[in-house]
């Protein structure tokens, strides 16, 4: 499912720095992104097409197949002398049989000679949640599909308009700039920006500073800077010129200060690299609105190792997108690797 990554070292610079040089994809939950789960069933062709609706009525009272409402009981088979096939029952619901036969499957109530030779099929166990799952499911047996149109568009990488992408590009660009500034101070090259999408205002810009404190990852720095933008917070990052926040006084649109610490409610975070477990959970605690990251990382907790944003049992979930300015963000990490090799 992973889209192919392009790495054309020799391509022209111009095409690589515009907002058309990257594509943003949603990072979905396991339920939404996993392969279709299948369950075994018995099916049989219908001899006389005209009897189909009566047979379906009888079948559904004999074998209701509850929990599989997404499954269409009949499918059309192109170019067959018996153009319709129906699902009789799940293998697990069928009576014990020595040999597969329609007589043993339909002991009473349904006219046996209305069906052709029964056979085993695999059918989708769960309703498809995305168009790719729907298409994959359909290769086994037809299902219904309540399409989330926005999700389908998002999966094509087309959710955001050109002006939206241009803004996202600018936000991530300042995260990249912050990452570089941090890297020059000997920190890991990771930068982050918090934006209020309702006002399009940048609330905080931060970079990694774990050289001073092992927990001061770019995201943690930004969360505290957001707290400072609301007149609170507990650290000072004033020694870092690139770690900034919008001071509370200059923010006239701010409503009365809330007593709740859910300070990132409704905000977007742009971060060059996928957050680690600590940072991802810190974003849950802070009630972040959406997260956009440039490049994935092995221990990442918003898609790679965990999907904390869609973790069941947690009290806050949020949308995550990856791929914003992917090339530039990836370069930050690879340059860092290069520098380290030189250092040691």
């Amino acid at each position: 499912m992973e889209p192919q990554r392009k790495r054309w070292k020799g391509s022209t610079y111009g095409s690589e720095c515009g907002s058309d040089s990257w594509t943003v994809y949603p990072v979905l939950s396991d339920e939404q992104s996993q392969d279709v789960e299948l369950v075994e069933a018995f099916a049989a062709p219908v001899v006389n097409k005209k009897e189909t609706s009566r047979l379906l009525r009888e079948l559904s009272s004999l074998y209701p197949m509850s929990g599989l409402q997404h499954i269409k009981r009949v499918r059309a088979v192109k170019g067959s002398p018996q153009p319709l096939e129906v699902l009789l029952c799940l293998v697990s619901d069928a009576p014990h049989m020595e040999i597969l036969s329609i007589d043993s499957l339909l002991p009473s109530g349904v006219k046996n000679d209305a069906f052709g030779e029964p056979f085993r099929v695999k059918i989708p166990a769960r309703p498809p949640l995305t168009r790719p799952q729907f298409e994959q499911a359909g290769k086994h047996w037809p299902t219904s599909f309540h399409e989330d149109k926005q999700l389908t568009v998002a999966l094509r990488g087309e959710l955001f308009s050109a002006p939206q992408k241009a803004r996202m590009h600018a936000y991530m660009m300042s995260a990249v700039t912050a990452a570089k500034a941090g890297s020059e101070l000997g920190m890991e090259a990771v930068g982050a920006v918090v934006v209020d999408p309702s006002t399009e205002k940048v609330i905080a810009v931060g970079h990694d500073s774990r050289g001073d404190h092992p927990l001061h990852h770019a995201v943690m720095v930004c969360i505290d800077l957001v707290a400072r933008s609301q007149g609170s917070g507990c650290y000072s990052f004033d020694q870092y010129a690139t770690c900034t926040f919008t001071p509370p006084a200059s923010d006239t649109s701010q409503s009365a200060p809330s007593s709740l610490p859910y300070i990132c409610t409704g905000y977007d975070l742009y971060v060059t690299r996928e957050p680690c477990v600590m940072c991802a959970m810190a974003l849950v605690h802070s009630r972040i609105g959406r997260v956009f990251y440039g490049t994935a990382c092995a221990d990442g907790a918003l898609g790679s190792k965990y999907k904390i944003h869609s973790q069941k049992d947690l009290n806050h979930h949020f949308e995550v997108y990856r791929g914003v300015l992917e090339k530039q963000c990836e370069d930050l990490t690879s340059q860092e690797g290069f520098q380290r090799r030189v250092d040691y």
Partner: protein
Amino acid sequence: MGTEKSFCPSDEEIEKWMSSAFDMARDALQNGEVPVGCLLVYNHEVVGRGRNEVNETKNATRHAEMVALDQLQDWCRRSNLDVSGVCERTALYVTVEPCIMCAAALRLFKLPVVVFGCRNDRFGGCGSVLDISSAVLPQTGNTFKCVSGHRAEEAVDMLKTFYKQENPNAPKPKTRKE
């Protein structure tokens, strides 16, 4: 490597330091704060002590463990000791299972052992929601050992009392009253 891995407090130490952690938690509860007590102990000395500071800092990451880890760093600076050398022989005592975030933070500090009271069904990072303490995360510090269940019921009761107070239907007391 071997000696660090086997570093683990004795039963008497657990008894003693958990009792302090419970005193802290009870104190917090009486002051209308999240009833979590947490101590970092190195070489029979408390080097970090934390309580939840989320409300006053508006920083939702200021859990007791995070506050205590900051104190540990300050202590090392004052004592002119190397943080990682100290952490290797430091145990965390906390009345409630650390959350996912704090568990990852403890890994990043390379703490070898965490002793906790009750499970944390809402956010627990040592097995209740996710098991960050033992997960394979090569870029996220070290795994750590958990010793759990010490006076668990007592810890749960304090949390229950606290969340009952926090019930949105009940009139809400000011968080920072004298």
